[in-house]
């Protein structure tokens, strides 16, 4: 039951085959069973059970709120949840209890979803591994020693045009699910012994690693992450689930503790593309409380229509082959291009010439905005406060030194360096200009008739923890985010 999609479990609930309380119990059990993966900062058991009971009543009375009614979900721990600790995996907010819900959390609640828990993340969403958290790192479920059953498709794995085009979303997603399972078991066959014996494990990716593993493990049916430079797409790739970064301004950021105001978006993690569309339809739309949301009325997505693939033009940006990209990623990239071509789409190579400098530009803008955003943590109105009382400066300095880890402090210092008067034009202003060049790369692609850009998400599959921590957070982000952050700079999904 826990591997079903949202649509499938919703069907069962509608038909009365199961009730929300039973689904909730099963998910809580699964979450407890997988405690060693450290997915959740906090399981909100009482809240979940209460919400599930309320949903039971709604199903009995026939006033179901949405497709998501009664379905357990999880949110990353940087979303404000009323009276539930929201820590951002940092000492600074370890006991912070927001008195309000983030808009997207409220929307999930209004849709009837059941909040199972808050997911682990990198501290303040700074990182690409979910290893820098005060709650400890999150482990990828794949090759963690947990047993799983492969779902096999009825019939051969689809390679021909007809099967791909003709499949409905459920069938298609099962195929994807199986292929991703296949990839993991394939690397297992390469002779590496069970990681629990070696004491090493594979990272979940970050910074929304907890949310991704929550979905991949079946503990929840969907989860919220956030995406600033790839933080939803990276763990989705490493955990084999669907990660959607909506366009900037589509979903409200009210209540999402900010990292980079001009690039942050809430991210959606699900097991199928269809589910991601379901979640998007519930969460999108203008919010009075977030002035950066667009005012256009949102037209809900409908994926049930058959798409005429021959009318779609797919662009392959040549600059996305970056040093360090594994053969497997290259082959997959090529394989997907083949599938689409055989299905009738036009696949062309395009150039996005400013891609190689995008990550350096992103690092400057990220650090500068962080320096500004983190200024609010002074210990006075909320958050950690040390006993220092010689002066406000001493209090701020000591609180912030204790509250922030090295990565956060490093980014604040770097950001303030780039914002110094003597550096401002050469780094910050220059980065803003390069950002326009990067955004223009995308605009040129769209205006030359390209409908979809096909690129890899990460350079390799999930690395081992020991390998990942051999380079520090700053170095890792500088290479892991290569393929994902240009989209954040340009605002696209």
């Amino acid at each position, binding site marked *: 039951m826990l591997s079903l999609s949202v649509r499938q479990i919703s069907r069962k609930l509608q038909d009365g085959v199961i009730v929300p309380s039973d689904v909730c119990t099963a998910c809580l059990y699964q979450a407890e069973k997988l405690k060693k993966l450290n997915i959740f900062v906090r399981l909100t058991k009482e809240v979940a059970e209460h919400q599930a009971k309320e949903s039971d009543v709604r199903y009995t009375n026939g006033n179901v709120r949405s497709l998501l009614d009664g379905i357990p979900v999880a949110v990353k721990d940087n979303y404000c949840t009323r009276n539930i600790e929201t820590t951002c995996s940092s000492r600074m907010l370890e006991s912070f209890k927001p008195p309000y819900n983030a808009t997207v959390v409220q929307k999930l609640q209004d849709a009837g979803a059941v909040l199972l828990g808050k997911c682990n993340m990198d501290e303040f969403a700074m990182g690409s591994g979910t290893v820098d958290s005060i709650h400890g790192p999150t482990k990828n479920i794949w090759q963690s020693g947990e047993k799983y059953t492969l779902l096999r498709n009825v019939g051969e794995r689809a390679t021909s045009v007809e099967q791909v085009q003709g499949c409905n979303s459920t069938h298609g997603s099962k195929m994807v699910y199986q292929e991703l399972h296949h990839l993991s078991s394939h690397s297992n066959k390469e002779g590496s012994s069970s990681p629990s014996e070696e004491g090493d494990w594979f990272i979940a990716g970050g910074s929304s690693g907890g949310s991704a593993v929550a979905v991949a493990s079946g503990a929840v049916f969907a989860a919220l992450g956030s995406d600033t430079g790839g933080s939803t797409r990276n763990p989705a790739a490493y955990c084999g689930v669907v990660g959607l970064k909506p366009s900037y301004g589509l979903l409200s950021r009210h209540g999402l503790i900010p990292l980079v105001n*001009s690039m942050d978006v809430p991210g959606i993690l699900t097991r199928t593309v269809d589910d991601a569309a379901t979640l998007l339809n519930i969460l999108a739309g203008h919010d009075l409380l977030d002035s950066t949301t667009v005012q256009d009325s949102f037209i809900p997505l409908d994926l049930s229509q058959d798409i005429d693939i021959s009318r779609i033009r797919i662009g392959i940006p040549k600059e996305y082959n970056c040093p360090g990209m594994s053969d497997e990623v290259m082959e997959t990239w090529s394989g997907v*291009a083949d599938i689409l071509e055989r299905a009738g789409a036009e696949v062309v190579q395009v150039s996005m010439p400013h891609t190689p400098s995008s990550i*350096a530009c992103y690092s400057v803008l990220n650090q500068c905005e962080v320096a500004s955003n983190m200024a609010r943590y002074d210990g006075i109105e909320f*958050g950690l406060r040390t006993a220092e009382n010689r002066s*406000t400066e*001493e209090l701020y*300095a000591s609180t912030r030194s204790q509250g922030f880890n090295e990565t956060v402090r490093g980014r604040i210092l770097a950001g303030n360096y780039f914002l110094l008067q003597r550096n401002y034009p050469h*780094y910050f202003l220059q980065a803003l200009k390069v950002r326009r060049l990067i955004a223009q790369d995308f605009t040129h692609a769209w205006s030359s008739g390209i409908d979809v850009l096909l690129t890899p998400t990460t350079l390799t599959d999930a690395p081992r923890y020991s390998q990942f921590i051999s380079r520090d957070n700053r170095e890792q982000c500088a290479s892991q985010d290569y393929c994902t952050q240009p989209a954040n700079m340009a605002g696209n999904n």
Partner: protein
Amino acid sequence: MHRLWKHNIFLEKFWFLQQNARSLNSKIPPTPIVKPIEENKLPPRTKIDQKTIDLLERLSLVDFANKKGIERLEDAIRFADQIRVIDTTGVEPMISVLEDRTLYLHDDIVTDGNCRKEVMSNAALTEESYFVAPQGNIPLIPRDSLLTEDENLDQK
């Protein structure tokens, strides 16, 4: 004999890679186009001096903690130097991706408030209905320079 064997292995590897490159879809670039920028094209590597350390610590109100923190900053600056060699003549800075849209304004009517309890609920220290802070305008006490820090001090 050894040289010949090595040469054969090289040819075999070369052929194998070519095979793999040939099996990729023709639109996928088989090798990375991206080349790292040569060191001599970049401005000289920035060395952080004590004055800058003090300034940054005062502005940021966080500390570098140790020498490694300074090296990390120098690495971050080096990484950022890549953008300095890009020609941006005539390019306007892009502050927001939504720059072509008008920001939403709402009427000047009070729609929120009267929630002092919630607003103060997370403050560690309060007095009646005030937040409490120590005295301001007192400069930070200067510390020992991190630039002369020993390896031994690191391990303390």
